[in-house]
């Protein structure tokens, strides 16, 4: 029977929320890794029962845990993240050189085609990859050479990989988009990536490689969660830098603020949500009101979605990896808040209800659509 599994990472453990296709009744399982800060939990597109988690803590470092039964039980795998070569230094907040050192894994991105391959985006910024089911992790040489540019470009010290089913190594496309936004040197960055990535993944469809079209068109209905995560991250970076402006302008001009890459309307893929809509759903809490904005016009016009969401005295935040969508015919949308609520909409955002209300602060939300 089809269903969904929502994977929630929080400040103090991970939770697994499951429901059937109706998404009205939920079973809450957890906490897993109680007391550990779980920045990300994500299932493998290849095997729905294979789930990866990245618990970490200031005391005991970074763990990588893997479940092969859909999150019911977990086993630790390799957690040694050693930078490729001599890592050197980068510019610290006060402008002084600071040694490059691994701190934590922010994002895990399992491969779309191989169950044993996973990318990990880490702080200090680098991308690691395992091809042996997590036993060992190697830094991607291209990102190693570009480390200092990554950190300067992002303004933060972490890297987040993401996949698009249309381009299995979509990480390259993400970085290309950063280049277009002026965050990375373009030509040299591409050369560095070329060492790691297949040409097809780098170049994409030539017909779509024009300015303003940052990503290749998704194949079928698959890309939603990963693609959303990319933009949630972009929003998060924006929020970190210009928080006041973001909140003040959020309701008035969300389209201009978000600067979405897709400019033209595209065919509807589902009832309620357009194919690319997950990129365009961003919960914001301006004026104490929790809203999700939805665009059906490629980002030119936005509508606030409020039914079931608190509309007064609500000051929670939604962090960069804490929103996802499922792949059921009537698209479900999910997001978690720093107040510990996980909201779900089984009807493409028209109505919302809280699956749970009092979890620890939610750091990430991912969804698996179960066969």
């Amino acid at each position, binding site marked *: 029977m089809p269903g969904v599994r929502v994977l929630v990472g929080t400040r103090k453990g991970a939770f697994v929320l499951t429901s059937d296709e109706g998404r009205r009744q939920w079973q809450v399982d957890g906490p897993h890794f*109680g*007391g*550990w800060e779980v920045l990300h939990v994500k299932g493998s597109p290849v095997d729905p029962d294979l789930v990866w988690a990245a618990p970490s*803590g*200031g*005391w*005991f*470092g*970074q*763990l990588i845990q893997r479940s092969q039964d859909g999150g019911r039980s977990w086993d*630790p795998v390799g*957690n*040694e993240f*050693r930078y490729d070569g001599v890592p050197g230094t980068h510019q610290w907040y006060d402008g002084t050189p600071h040694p490059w050192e*691994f701190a934590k894994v922010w994002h895990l991105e399992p491969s779309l085609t191989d169950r044993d391959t996973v990318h990990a985006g880490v702080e200090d910024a680098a991308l690691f990859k395992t091809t042996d089911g997590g036993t060992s992790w190697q830094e991607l040489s291209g990102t190693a050479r570009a480390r200092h540019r990554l950190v300067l470009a992002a303004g933060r010290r972490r890297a987040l990989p993401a996949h698009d089913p249309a381009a299995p190594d979509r990480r390259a496309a993400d970085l290309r988009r950063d280049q277009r936004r002026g965050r990375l040197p373009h030509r040299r960055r591409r050369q560095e990536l070329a060492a790691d990535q297949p040409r097809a993944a780098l170049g994409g469809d030539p017909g779509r490689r024009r300015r303003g079209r940052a990503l290749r068109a998704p194949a079928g209905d698959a890309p939603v969660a990963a693609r959303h995560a990319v933009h949630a991250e972009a929003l998060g970076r924006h929020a970190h830098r210009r928080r006041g402006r973001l909140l003040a302008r959020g309701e008035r001009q969300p389209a201009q603020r978000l600067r979405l890459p897709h400019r033209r309307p595209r065919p509807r893929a589902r009832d309620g949500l357009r194919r690319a809509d997950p990129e365009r759903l961003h919960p914001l809490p301006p004026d104490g009101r929790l809203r999700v904005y939805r665009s059906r016009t490629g980002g030119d016009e936005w509508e606030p979605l409020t039914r079931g969401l608190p509309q007064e005295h609500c000051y929670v935040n939604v962090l960069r990896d804490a929103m996802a969508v499922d792949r059921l015919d009537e698209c479900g949308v999910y997001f978690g808040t720093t107040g510990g609520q996980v909201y779900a909409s089984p009807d493409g955002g028209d109505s919302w209800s809280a699956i749970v209300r009092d979890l620890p602060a939610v750091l990430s939300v991912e969804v698996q659509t179960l066969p």
Partner: protein
Amino acid sequence: VIRIVLPAHLRALARVDGEVQLEAGTVREALAGLEAAHPALRGTIRDPVTQERRAFVRFYACSEDLSHDPPDDPLPARVLSGEEPLLVIGAMAGG
């Protein structure tokens, strides 16, 4: 045989109840034995690359703080005899 007491987080991670017992004469040997017996603990008490003790992990025994002692120093006699445990402690921090 020495006795090692782990903090709750690490006991859960290693799936052990109570103390861990193993052969060791120094803190370094104790940690190596601990990681060999329980691979899940690798990287949690000391950095896997530098082998340095994590900043908020401390070692105590016989009411003494051994955290800053050289890791190859012999453990106290009462620890070596099993009379006292080697305590691995997650430091209190924050408010």
